C-alpha cells in the first residue's frame, strides 16, 4: 500500500540526476505545451515523448502500470463521453432522439483525451524520479519557508506510518470481536470511532515526541541555517532547461507569429 503513496523509485538516470527545480519547471512548461497544441497529430507526438520519458525514468513495471491504468481510464472516459455532450458539426454519424454523434465531436474528444493524457502523465515523470526530500528542497529553494517545507516533508514521511498504525489498530479491535463492516450506519460509524480515537491519540503522541526530538537537535536555534546537501544547477541542467524552454517557445512562435495550425 505504502508504495503507491510515494511513487519515487531509486535509480540513476539522467532524469534522476537533474536538479529538482528544473524538473518542476519542465513539468509545468510541458503542460503548457499540451495546452498550446490543438492538432491531434502533434499532441500524439507530445504524448509519445512523455511516455518515452516515463520509460526512461525506469520506474518498476508495477508502478508504471498503476500510473498508466489511471491515465488510460481517464482518457477512455473522455473519448466516450465527449461526443455525447458535444453535438456540433457535420456529418452526423448516428442519432437517437435528441442524441446525435458527429464526426468532428469524435475528433475533438480524441484530441482532448490525448491532451489530458499528456497533462496527467507528465507529472509521473516528476513523481517517479524525484524523492520527496528533493521535492521539498526544491520548493524551499523556490522561496517556501523552511519550516513549512519541513512540515510538508514530515507529513509525507509519516503518512505511510500512519496508515500502518491504522492497520494495526483495526487488527487490535478485530481481535476484540469487532466487525468493522457489520451493522447499520450508526453501528458502523461507532465501529470507526474505535479505530479513529486510538489513531488520533497515537498521531498526537508521535507529533509530541517528534517536536521534542527536533528541539533537542537544536531545530530553530538560528534563523540562518545551512544545508547538508545544497542543490546546484549543473551545466547539464542548463541544457535541459534550454531544451524545455525551446520546446514551449518554438511552437508558440509557430502558432502566434506565423499562425500555423499546430
Amino acid at each position: 500500500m505504502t508504495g503507491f503513496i510515494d511513487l519515487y523509485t531509486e535509480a540513476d538516470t539522467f532524469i534522476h540526476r537533474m536538479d529538482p527545480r528544473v524538473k518542476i519547471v519542465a513539468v509545468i512548461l510541458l503542460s503548457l505545451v499540451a495546452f498550446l497544441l490543438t492538432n491531434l497529430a502533434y499532441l500524439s507526438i507530445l504524448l509519445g515523448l512523455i511516455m518515452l520519458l516515463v520509460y526512461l525514468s525506469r520506474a518498476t513495471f508495477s508502478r508504471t502500470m498503476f500510473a498508466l491504468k489511471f491515465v488510460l481510464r481517464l482518457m477512455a472516459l473522455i473519448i466516450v463521453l465527449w461526443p455525447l455532450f458535444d453535438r456540433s458539426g457535420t456529418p452526423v454519424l448516428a442519432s437517437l432522439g435528441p442524441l446525435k454523434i458527429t464526426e468532428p465531436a469524435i475528433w475533438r474528444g480524441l484530441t482532448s483525451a490525448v491532451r489530458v493524457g499528456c497533462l496527467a502523465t507528465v507529472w509521473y515523470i516528476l513523481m517517479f524520479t524525484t524523492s520527496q526530500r528533493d521535492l521539498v528542497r526544491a520548493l524551499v529553494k523556490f522561496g517556501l519557508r523552511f519550516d513549512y517545507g519541513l512540515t510538508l516533508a514530515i507529513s509525507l514521511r509519516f503518512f505511510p506510518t500512519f496508515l500502518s498504525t491504522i492497520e494495526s489498530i483495526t487488527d487490535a479491535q478485530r481481535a476484540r470481536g469487532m466487525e468493522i463492516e457489520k451493522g447499520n450506519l450508526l453501528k458502523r460509524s461507532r465501529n470507526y470511532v474505535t479505530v479513529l480515537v486510538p489513531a488520533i491519540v497515537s498521531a498526537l503522541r508521535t507529533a509530541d515526541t517528534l517536536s521534542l526530538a527536533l528541539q533537542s537537535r537544536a531545530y530553530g536555534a538560528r534563523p540562518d541555517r545551512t544545508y547538508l546537501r545544497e542543490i546546484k544547477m549543473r551545466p547539464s541542467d542548463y541544457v535541459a532547461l534550454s531544451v524545455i524552454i525551446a520546446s514551449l517557445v518554438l511552437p508558440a512562435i509557430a502558432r502566434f507569429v506565423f499562425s500555423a495550425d499546430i
Partner: protein
Amino acid sequence: MIPCTSAIPSQDKVISIKNLKFTYEGGVRALLDICLDIKYGDYLAIVGGNGSGKTTLAKTLNGLLRPSSGAVFVKGRPTTERRVSELARVVGYAFQNPDHQLFCSSVEEEVRFGPSNLGYSEEDVRQKAEQAIVGMNLSHLRGKPPLSLRLGERRRVSMASVMAMDPEVLILDEPTTGLDAEEVSELMRRLRRLNEEGKTIILITHDMRLVAEHAKRVVVMAQGRIVLDSDPRGAFTDIEVLRRSSLEPPAVTLLSHRLSKFEIPQDIISPEELVLHLLRSEGESK
C-alpha cells in the same frame, strides 16, 4: 515438504499448525513451513530476535492473517472457515502496543467492549468485565479514562479487555515492555494463576528470564522457522542455537556454564536452583 508429525493426541490440541507458510503482500516471506501443536492448558513461550516471525505466527492463530499455504486449526477447525470475531471467543490477543486499542472514556467501558461484541448477555458482560478488572488490579481506576493512565496501567487495561472475553487461549505480545520490575512480577503471577485455572498462555517475548521461570515449553524462532522446541531447560542448554537466533540465555544459566569447572550442572535456569545446588554440595563436603 515434509508433513507435520505430532506426539500430541488430536483431542488434546487446542491449536494445530500444519506446514504453515505466510508471505506478506510486499513479498516478504515471514513464515516458512511451520509445524506446531499446542495443548490445552499449556504455557508456551515464543522467543526469537526481531523479525524472526513471532508476531506474524501469533496473528495467524486468531485469523488476523490467513495462511498463504498450509493451515491453522483452532479446536479442530481451520481458521479460514471462521471470522476473526468468532475466533476471538477462543483465542484472545493482547497487542504489543496498548495504545492501539484503547478508545473508551472509562476503564470499565473499555473492558466491557470485547465481551459485548461477542454477544454475551448484559449480566455475563458485567460479570466477565468485573472479573478481569479485579484480576488485573484495576478496581481503583475503573472510572478513569484509560488514555490518561501510565503505560503500565494502560497495558493492564488492554490485557483486562482481552481477558474479559474469557478466551481459552491468551496470546500476549511482549506484555512486559515498559513495565517496571514490580509490575512485571505482578503480571507474571496473574498469568500463572490463569494458567493454573486452565487457560492456555502463549507468551511472545525477548525476556529469557521470564521464559525460564514461567513457561512450560519454549519455541525458538529464527528467519521464519522454528529452530528449537523444548522445555526451558532443554532450550537454554543449547546456547549456540540461542545465539544464532539473537537470544541470550538467562544470566544464571550463563554463570553456571562459566562455573562448570566447579562441578555446577549446565542446565540451571533459575537462581533458586543454583542456590539449592550450592547448599547441597556444601552439605556433602561437610
